[in-house]
């Protein structure tokens, strides 16, 4: 066999061709995997939009539920979801961020801290129905908050706090140690370092994690059924102690009816839920950009 010389003909040898084919095959597999997700989402959105858009009009947003499909609307569920979302955000955000700051900036690295850390990670994996049962026992019964918006928001806060805490810890850990050293070196106290340097730098990451967690909360049904959200309500909550229903529950309620008209209403409800999620993501992006340009 002759010396191949200074050629780059690797692609023409059998071995070289096989290597090339493997590379192309792998890229193709990855592209196909991506396409599965994108296509599924595309089909889902198109299907829901086709079914739901005809029913989605101004009346749909301002009417309460009804046995007559033409008169049924989503007002109570939309208002309930917004109430739940707002209260959940107000409760879970400060508590989670404070917990993350404590774990990252104050707690000493001993077995207690490690135990807490492991438990937070485990809590993030607990099924939501379990949180529902806890919410029922703790908030509805023990604290006598009854089947209120507040009970629901507290339950969902417990559900998403582990996720926000872990996201906030990641964001705080990503703040360069050199920035902390510089601030300490100038005679700043621990609180001043956290408030003036660590939190502003970590805020974009914390906000992203919070919005993602809230997006999960807005789609939850099971724990809210446990704490007493109902499928039909003819009023919107006027305060945190009122009864409530939420979008996913209303959608489920409609889907389970035998008449086709209610299926169309469910599709319209899904469109509203998706729009709510999209606008939350938009808020996250705006907040993130605001913080980043300020630096």
């Amino acid at each position: 066999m002759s010396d191949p010389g200074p050629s780059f003909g690797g692609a023409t040898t059998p071995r070289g061709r096989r290597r090339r084919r493997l590379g192309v095959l792998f890229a193709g597999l990855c592209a196909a995997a991506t396409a599965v997700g994108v296509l599924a989402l595309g089909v889902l959105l198109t299907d829901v939009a086709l079914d739901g858009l005809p029913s989605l009009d101004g009346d749909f947003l301002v009417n309460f539920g009804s046995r007559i499909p033409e008169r049924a609307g989503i007002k109570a569920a939309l208002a309930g979801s917004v109430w739940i979302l707002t209260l959940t955000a107000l409760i879970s955000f400060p508590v989670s961020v404070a917990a993350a700051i404590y774990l990252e900036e104050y707690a000493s690295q001993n077995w207690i801290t490690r135990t807490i850390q492991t438990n937070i990670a485990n809590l993030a994996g607990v099924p939501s129905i379990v949180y529902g049962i806890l919410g029922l026992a703790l908030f509805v019964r023990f604290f006598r908050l009854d089947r209120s918006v507040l009970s629901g928001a507290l339950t969902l806060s417990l559900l998403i706090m582990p996720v926000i805490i872990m996201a906030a810890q990641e964001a705080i850990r990503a703040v360069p140690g050199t920035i902390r050293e510089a601030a300490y070196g100038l005679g700043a106290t621990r609180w001043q370092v956290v408030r003036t340097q660590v939190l502003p730098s970590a805020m974009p990451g914390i906000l992203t994690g919070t919005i993602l967690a809230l997006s999960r909360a807005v789609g939850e049904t099971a724990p809210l059924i446990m704490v007493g959200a109902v499928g039909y309500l003819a009023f919107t909550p006027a305060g945190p102690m009122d009864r409530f229903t939420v979008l996913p529950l209303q959608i489920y309620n409609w889907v389970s009816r035998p008449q086709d008209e209610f299926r169309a209403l469910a599709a319209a409800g899904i469109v509203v839920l998706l729009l709510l999620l999209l606008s939350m993501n938009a808020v996250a992006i705006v907040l993130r950009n605001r913080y980043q340009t300020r630096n």
Partner: protein
Amino acid sequence: MATIYDIETGGRVPALEAQGLSVFYGELEAVKDVSLTIPSRQVVALIGPSGCGKSTLLRCFNRMNDLVPAARVEGAVTFHGQNLYGDDVDPVEVRRRIGMVFQKPNPFPKSIFDNVAFGPRVNGHEGDLDMLVEASLKQSALWDEVHDRLQDSAYALSGGQQQRLCIARTLAVKPEIVLMDEPASALDPIATQRIEELIYELKKDYTIVIVTHNMQQAARISDYTAFLYMGHLVEYGPTETIFTNPKEEQTEAYITGRFG
């Protein structure tokens, strides 16, 4: 064995005195029983090979090692007759009076003005902040380059300018001693020269302790030099003596480039 090096300080008041200082990182003893006197308004260089404990020793002087959870300090550092490691000493106050400039320029992700104003603000400065910022930037020879863009991000500055900003930021707190941990190691030769000229100027008002990897730099800018090896203070004395007529064989081997 502890050796206290008596050095000719020309009757100068000692700014800092370390007595039997040892630092442990868990089981590892990074600084071993070091005693030395830092004379006031002089430049003292700490030299030695990587891992010899010179940065760790420097960080003892403003209690930065407190921030490393596994670090433990034994011995005493005396400053104005008070042990910095005494029970009633607040490390936050120590760091205000003994400032520090770090190896890599580490400005805050804020404007040039806010970087310099940070220290005075957290320390409750009362008075004209604009004047203080201007004076600090002039002291660090940066004012002429940035006076018309104080609200720009500090990240827009070059590496050398960022390091001079960090020096201005340290000076704005009005410390008595400035600790510098290889302040020019991440800079090009021109920027390094500017920092060295600056150190020469600052010596008039401040005591400076500088860690450096660069022996020529130590020879150029310092009045006293301490050579550390494996956590021990091998030799300490006037820079000229250390570089021309060292007493210890290890010192001579290091400065002539036989190891390190």
